[in-house]
């Protein structure tokens, strides 16, 4: 059940993201977002629209160029890495990770922020790891090394790692790339279930717009260097998707909620 008066967990105020220090190269600016507890939000936009950049900035992996990010009302920049690691976890694409790790070892690393300097797992840590493995249906694979996993399985293991970190916010960068339709759908449903059941705030970038239209609570559309956050229905009404892609090759059909190719 969704709590009736959900509160803001992650929000931004006039945020601008991009690259560079001396010569700033702004990718998206004037970002005002508000993510609630227990909601599953997706972020969409064409290639190069700044989805990953914004996600990395929200995760604290990249400095904002301007504006502020607030975590539970407090400025994110005031939190040190260790405190942040208790609040925000991530699932990223294109990272070089050690494929020698077994699924269990990989998921266990999610408990690093909670363990002592030896990294020793307590009974509570082990329970969290187990419930993350159960939630992602990895029980049969848990002793397999990562190099023996399929793309979909590895993606689930990475999500399990983030779950084991047990943070209020989970940020995912295109977790369904390279997956078939069945696995895409199962990952999105899983994320929605986690958001509902564990009252987590989940933000996920994706290119599978049609698929998430019916699954997510809210969407953030990146278009023309700015953002638009709303429910999928409201965004469809506003006609946002008609203009999402440049040119005339692709157009959005409101009635069927699908993109059609002319």
């Amino acid at each position, binding site marked *: 059940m969704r709590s009736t008066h959900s509160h803001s967990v992650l929000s931004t105020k006039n945020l601008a993201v991009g690259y560079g220090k001396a010569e700033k190269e702004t990718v998206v600016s004037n970002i005002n977002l508000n993510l609630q507890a227990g909601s599953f939000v997706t972020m969409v936009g064409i290639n190069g629209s700044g989805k990953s950049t914004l996600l*990395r900035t929200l*995760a*604290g*992996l990249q400095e904002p160029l301007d504006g502020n990010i607030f975590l539970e009302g407090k400025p994110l920049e005031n939190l040190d*890495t*260790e405190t*942040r*690691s*208790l609040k*925000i*976890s*991530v699932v*990223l694409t294109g*990272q*070089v*990770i*050690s*494929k*020698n*790790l*077994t699924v269990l*070892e*990989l998921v266990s*690393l*999610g408990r*690093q*922020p909670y*363990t002592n*300097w*030896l*990294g020793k797992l307590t009974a509570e840590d082990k329970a969290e790891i187990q419930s993350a493995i159960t939630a992602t249906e990895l029980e049969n694979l848990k002793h397999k*090394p990562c*190099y023996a996993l399929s793309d979909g399985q590895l993606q689930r293991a990475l999500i399990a*790692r983030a779950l084991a*970190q047990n943070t209020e916010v989970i940020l995912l960068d295109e977790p369904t790339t390279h997956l078939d339709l069945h696995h895409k759908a199962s990952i999105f449903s899983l994320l929605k279930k986690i958001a509902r059941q564990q009252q987590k705030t989940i933000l996920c970038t994706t290119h599978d717009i049609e698929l998430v239209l019916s699954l997510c609570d809210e969407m953030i559309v990146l278009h023309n260097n700015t953002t638009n956050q709303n429910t999928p229905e409201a965004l469809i009404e506003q006609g946002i998707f008609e203009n999402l892609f440049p040119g005339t090759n692709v157009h959005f059909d409101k009635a069927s909620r699908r993109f059609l190719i002319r």
Partner: protein
Amino acid sequence: MGVGVLLLLLLNIGLGSVYIPLSAIFQVILGDDSIREAWTYIILDYRIPKALAALMTGSGLAVAGLMMQTLFKNPLAGPFVLGISSGASLGVAFFILGGSALGLTALLSVHGWGTIIAASLGSFAVLSVVIAVASRVRDAMALLIIGLMFGSLTSAVVSILAYFSPAEELQRYMFWSFGSLGDISWSALGILWLCYVIGIGLAFSITKNLNSLLLGDHYAQTLGVSLQRSRFVILISTSILAGSLTAFVGPIAFVGLAVPHLIRQWFTASNHWTLLPACILGGALLMLLCDILAQLPGLPITLPINAITSLIGAPVVIWLLIRKKKLLF
């Protein structure tokens, strides 16, 4: 594994160009002075220091290699491959060949600190450059190419220095570059031990962070790891280990690269709380073995240790590559 190290340690002390019965060795170690004086001298002042040097060299380089493979997320990283040993050589070359002009050599060489500082500074400098480049270029090949370039740079600078150096110093440098575990005094061993303990201690102090780094820099950061601090500790630890060891025993190839891979294969582990102690033992084991082979037991000659580690290490890496198709860090 610990037993293996002890056995090889004994075997290493027991074997050499002069035959000494095992019972006599035990008596000497236990402080019995009724044994022939020459034997006592050989054992206490030559063989034991040499065996201990082998032990520290093997384990120190293996630990340095392990940390670099994790830090750079590159299975081919190692003190030798990334040019860290070349950096140390460069430091020593400047010290031995260039130092005389400044009168530094005579001043510092007495206690062996000069070479250590020169070698550590050399490896620190190279490693800093490699880390700086690594954070800019996210490419595994680029790192190795940089290592290669440092190797060439070193030999170029050394040849220039050699051109202007007197024959005597040149010879000293050449002998050093062959690598040797012998000729190490107890006082030098003490200095080496100090560096070794600091280097290994630092490695253990960031073992938890090394585990997080297995997931790459971004994930590690979101797990609460301060990237800058971890990099710095690894930088200091590897430069001290690779620097001090290279200073005393010369550039040793392949131990730092091969041992971590052999250990990963053997233990099928990724956790550094397993890998680190295992590399310490495994490195010691391999080096003691190489040293035994280098002395060609029964013959009065000793081969350069660097040649033996390469003879053993290179085929091992090739074998691992062929068997696994792919090396993973």
